[in-house]
């Protein structure tokens, strides 16, 4: 593979945003018939690089060469035309349009100048089938699909454009192992067909399974390129973060699960057809994980606790006393002291154009104000504490939070809740799209908070995380708790088999119940 002629080359690409150097003389070459992984910390410049490739961002300097000719893309459409297709994370599906509309969106089939709906549907069905999403109805609106299905649609959409170079920017970060496996098959097949694939992910195991070639980015430069498998995980991570890399998960305390006083308790919670008689307890100091395939009611369960769902049946108890939580305002109230790190930090956790400061203190304004007036000194003190505690990397407190890298944005979301010193912390897949270094900090923080007495309920799509962090894991299937794994029972095998709702050892991947 090393000898193959590059299909596409980037030379000396630089891009600055104000004072930030997103890319600094970056180089990359892509060969047909191979999968090229790009690794790097949050903010290393990976997304910017591929945005340049895909015509979304204009570089300040540098050249791009396709098939030996220098190219310049004025828009994503131009890049598409040249055969470069990119799957951006969550950014490029139009929510109010149907799946089929979205799949053909850049070049719909037409008859007499009008879009040919029959042809469109055929193309969509084919593409969905190829992407392994044949269960998705082409007429469904994208906004009605769960995240994991949307990712499938993204992939189908990319395939429908007949790419020569296919770029996936964290395309699997919202998917569970089963879906990932399906997609991997597709990607491998595409490689056989001679496509060039660029694959960005923070999941090392995925890269190990998939990549032929790897390039590591740090601070906007490509710092190393190597054939996949030629370096150990630890070496790679050290390249990425530029420092020594120690053990990723903090040790779990050894103790009996029963001795924790229950802080948060659910009794027979049911809601619509998404939650089915869920009962659980989370004790002080305990980290309880929620496992299972994505979309089995885990998110709804967290929302139910947080007062977002209406028409809930069953009981929620705090410190053993039943409470009615009718809104997030009630949930964060001192009597309950709950915090939720939501699913999507960009639309649910943060107000991107507002400053880091404003975002940090937003959930604690009531505490920081006297008679409605914000005590700015107190605000500053608490913010300084939090920025220090979580090591939030930011050019200042008065820049828009949207200018921070993904990982640091996530830290801001967590910090804003820690400012209230919550006793119950609900986390909805908090490490999505976050680099290893930051992840490790989060795991340690979680443990520290638990040790300080917090009750933590933690949903993750990453099984390693559940295994590494949780004292107990509840596996959900179709809205019900199918299995409770405690301590040493929490293994990958147990997680997967119970996620698929099978108990035998011959567990093969099976289609998840999802629409």
């Amino acid at each position: 593979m090393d000898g193959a002629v590059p299909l596409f080359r980037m030379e000396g690409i630089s891009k600055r945003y104000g004072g930030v150097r997103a890319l600094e003389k970056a180089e990359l070459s892509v060969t047909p018939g191979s999968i090229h992984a790009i690794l790097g910390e949050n903010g290393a410049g990976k997304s910017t690089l591929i945005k340049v490739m895909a015509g979304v961002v204009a570089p300040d300097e540098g050249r791009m060469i396709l098939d030996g000719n220098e190219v310049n893309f004025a828009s994503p459409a131009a890049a598409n035309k040249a055969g470069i297709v990119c799957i951006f994370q969550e950014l490029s599906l139009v929510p109010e349009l149907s799946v089929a509309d979205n799949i053909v969106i850049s070049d719909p089939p037409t008859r007499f100048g009008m879009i040919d709906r029959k042809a469109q549907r055929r193309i969509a069905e084919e593409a969905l089938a190829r992407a392994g999403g044949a269960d998705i109805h082409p007429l469904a609106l994208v906004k009605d699909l769960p995240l994991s299905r949307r990712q499938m649609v993204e992939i189908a959409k990319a395939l429908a454009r007949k790419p020569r170079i296919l770029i996936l920017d964290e395309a699997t970060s919202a998917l569970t192992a089963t879906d990932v496996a399906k997609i991997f098959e597709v990607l491998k097949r595409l490689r056989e067909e001679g496509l060039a694939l660029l694959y960005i992910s923070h999941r090392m195991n995925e890269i190990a399974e998939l990549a032929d070639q790897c390039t590591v980015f740090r601070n906007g430069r490509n710092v190393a390129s190597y054939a996949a498998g030629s370096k150990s995980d630890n070496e790679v991570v050290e390249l990425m973060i530029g420092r020594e890399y120690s053990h990723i998960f903090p040790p779990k305390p050894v103790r009996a699960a029963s001795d924790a006083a229950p802080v948060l308790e659910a009794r027979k919670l049911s809601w619509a057809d998404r939650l089915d008689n869920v009962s659980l307890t989370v004790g002080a100091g305990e980290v309880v994980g929620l496992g299972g395939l994505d979309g089995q009611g885990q998110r709804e369960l967290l929302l139910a606790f947080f007062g977002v769902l209406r028409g809930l049946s069953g009981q929620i108890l705090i410190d053993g006393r039943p409470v009615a939580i009718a809104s997030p305002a009630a949930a964060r109230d001192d009597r309950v002291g709950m915090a939720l790190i939501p699913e999507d930090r960009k639309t649910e956790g943060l107000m991107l154009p507002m400053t880091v400061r404003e975002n940090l203190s937003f959930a604690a304004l009531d505490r920081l104000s006297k008679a409605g007036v914000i005590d700015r000194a107190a605000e500053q003190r608490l913010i300084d504490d939090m920025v220090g505690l979580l090591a939030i990397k930011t050019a200042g407190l008065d820049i828009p939070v949207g200018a921070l890298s993904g990982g640091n944005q996530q830290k801001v979301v967590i910090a804003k809740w820690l400012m209230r010193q919550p006793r119950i912390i609900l986390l909805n897949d908090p490490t999505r799209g976050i680099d290893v270094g930051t992840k490790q900090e989060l795991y340690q923080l979680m443990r520290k908070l638990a040790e300080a007495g917090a009750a933590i309920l933690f949903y993750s799509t990453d099984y390693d995380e559940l295994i590494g962090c949780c004292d107990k894991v509840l596996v959900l299937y179709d809205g019900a708790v199918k299995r409770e794994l405690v301590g040493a029972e929490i293994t990958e095998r147990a997680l997967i088999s119970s996620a698929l709702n099978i108990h035998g050892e011959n567990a093969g991947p099976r289609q998840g119940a999802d629409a």
Partner: protein
Amino acid sequence: MKDWRYWLAEQRGTLLAFGIFIAMFVIYTTNHPAGFTANVVQTASNKGVLLAFVAMAQTLVVITAGIDLSVGMIFTLTNCLASWLVIGTGIETAFGVVAVLGTGLLCGAINGAIVIYGRLQPIVATIATGAVYFGIALLLRPFPGGSVNEDLADALTGRLFGVVPASLVVLLAVVLVVWVPFSRSVLGRAAYAAGSSETAAYMSGVPIRRGKFAAYALAGLLAAIGGLFLTFFTYTGDAAYASGNAYTLFSIAAVVLGGVSLFGGKGSAIGAIFGALAFRTIGDLLFVFDFDPLWQPLFQGVILLIAVSLGAFALFRVRNRLEWFL
């Protein structure tokens, strides 16, 4: 789910508007002293169709997540222009019609250019262009007056075969010639996509600027068709500020009643047409209920309030409060 269910879900707003309109119109005609006669239907349709054109215009822009507060003024301007040009021999009249429609298209294109290429917020940009269009209308018609080819006017506001209001037929033709091709074209889809999520559309290589531009320009054209029809209906041109403004505001109400989302990306001009017809019927109901004249404006206001609140009932079905926020 079966295919038709998806279709139904997509058409819900339109069907609801249709239902509201039918219900109101039935109440109206069954209580009308003259009853459900060709005359009554013709009167209602002539009046309704005017707003329907303006509401269709508004729909196009609203679909792109914009708003056009100048539609009423384009309507007024083209009315004034038509009262000069749409007159004379067949050829002259035809030329006049083309000129009037072209002017509307141009006004819409100017709006589009300012909003898209000038990157201004549509609300203020169109408040400002609306003032300009009205100023020009006033230059054309400092006083109400002028004239129009009355044969054409009578034909288009009259009845076909003695029963079918010609205005409805024109409306249908416009739907078929303007709306249907647009909504199914690549540009139309671009307009929807831009309205639903501009970033996503851009990233997907959708021609958003062209799509939006086409929507604004066609909105101008549709408003001009409305203006032309106003001229047919009144035989004159009139640069009436209050009436231009009223049509703009009514068009927004009609669009919402018609199930078009003001947030963009969703809804259809067909829905807006029924929204417009329903809105007009509110006024007609005054005939059939014997209200004290001074209570009539209040009655109309209350009915409007109730009509726009109807959509809120869907809220009680929402079980996940996050759905409040789209």
